[in-house]
């Protein structure tokens, strides 16, 4: 349940007050260059700018740190493998494995970039309340099916989890204890199958319920968002920063 809470969406900063569409646009403008650049300096710049954004959005640093921990748990593995698998100047070796300078640099680059991207998304997309996300995406021309998919995944993932828990408890009540045997795997397969069937049934019922209330495919929002001057500034900042990243990157490589 906690995973469905939206701790970042409740603030009242200049970013929270901006039009969700501007935030989505800005997020795309910033993260695409961030993901594409491959020089250290650009990556550091991106990280610094993303941190500045969190300050502007007045987000709780502890909460950000907690989420980054999860992301970096995956990145740690890069540090185990990349130094030993990239060719370059050797630094040290363990047995037949040799760690290279280039390998470490690559690991550092990926760490910086992924953190910058995640922080930017947290600040710009994480601050959009779910009920505004669907209509905003719809207004930006995202196919309705994708918008609905996002919205309903968010709403029903908890219900599906509840059904899973009910079923697993019912299994335990009948003495089910998972072990490494075919009975366990078969039971789990049935559980997953049943979960799919139930989700399908539920999807049909939800669809009926929405039809009964006159749903015709278009999402509406109660929040009022008008495109303001400050939204233009946000998008301009996105364009400017994105260009800066690309410029630094190309400049270092000697292309510009």
């Amino acid at each position: 349940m906690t995973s469905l809470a939206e701790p970042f969406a409740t603030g009242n900063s200049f970013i929270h007050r901006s039009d969700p569409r501007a935030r989505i646009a800005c997020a795309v403008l910033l993260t695409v260059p961030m993901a594409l650049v491959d020089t250290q300096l650009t990556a550091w710049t991106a990280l610094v700018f993303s941190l500045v954004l969190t300050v502007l959005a007045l987000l709780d640093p502890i909460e950000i740190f907690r989420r980054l921990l999860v992301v970096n748990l995956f990145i740690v593995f890069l540090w185990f493998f990349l130094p030993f698998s990239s060719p370059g100047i050797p630094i040290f070796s363990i047995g037949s494995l040799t760690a290279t300078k280039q390998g470490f640099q690559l690991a550092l680059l990926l760490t910086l970039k992924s953190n910058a991207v995640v922080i930017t998304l947290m600040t710009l997309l994480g601050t959009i309340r779910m009920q505004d996300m669907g209509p905003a995406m719809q207004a930006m021309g995202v196919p309705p099916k994708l918008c609905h998919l996002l919205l309903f995944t968010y709403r029903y993932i908890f219900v599906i989890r509840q059904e899973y828990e009910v079923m697993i408890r019912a299994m335990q009540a009948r003495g089910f204890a998972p072990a490494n045997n075919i009975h366990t795997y078969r039971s789990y397969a049935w559980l997953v199958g049943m979960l799919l069937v139930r989700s399908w049934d539920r999807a049909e019922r939800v669809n009926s319920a929405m039809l009964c209330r006159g749903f015709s495919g278009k999402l509406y929002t109660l929040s009022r968002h008008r495109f303001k001057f400050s939204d233009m500034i946000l998008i301009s900042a996105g364009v400017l920063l994105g260009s800066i990243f690309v410029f630094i990157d190309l400049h270092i490589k000697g292309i510009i």
Partner: protein
Amino acid sequence: MTHGNLINLHDVYYAYPHEAPVLNGVNFCLAGGDSLGLMGPNGAGKTTFLHVLMGLLKPTQGTVELFGIKPNTPEELRKARLQIGFLFQNSDDQLFSPTVLDDVAFGPLNQGLSREQALERARTTLQTLGLESFEPRVPYRLSGGEKKLVALATILAMEPKVLILDEPTTGLSPEARKRLMTIINDLDTPRLVVSHDADFLSHTTDSILAMRNGVIRPGQLKPHTHMHVHAEGDIPHEHG
């Protein structure tokens, strides 16, 4: 518009693909001012009947007339449905928005109301039901009884001409059930209540129909006495 029938089903048959028919010639009619109850054992076809009535399922035979027309196109169906408030058996199927207020405003927005009008409508409806404090709450975190009341609010906000309640008391606590009973009794909207709860039906409807083997018949009065006292006797229960 005459005071004619709001809903009229004539000789309706329905069978799910590759299965034995569920509805075997249903005749049903709800007129203005009517307040009907429908009882029937599990598998009698009650839910199928309701879904055919709402146009969610197309009958294999027979006609469904809603508000004087036989809706055929999706748009006609949509218009007809907008005038019927259909309360689903499982509130989780009905409530899908991130907040209660959004959910209650969903129907009015679909009806074409402006943002302000929809908001106003949603707020008044919640107020009438004494749920104004629920506005910012998240539907999936409400209790079963609260969910049911909010689900009722979402359909009342559409100011329907007819109310259809499918098993409204299932899983409700005695308090929640009582509150729902009071609310429904205070409404003067024509209604059809489907339930196993005879006591609830006798309090919220004027006459009770019975459904058995895919056919609806007028309910029959069976004399019986009730005179017993036992612990938790106010909870609806059955005696063998």
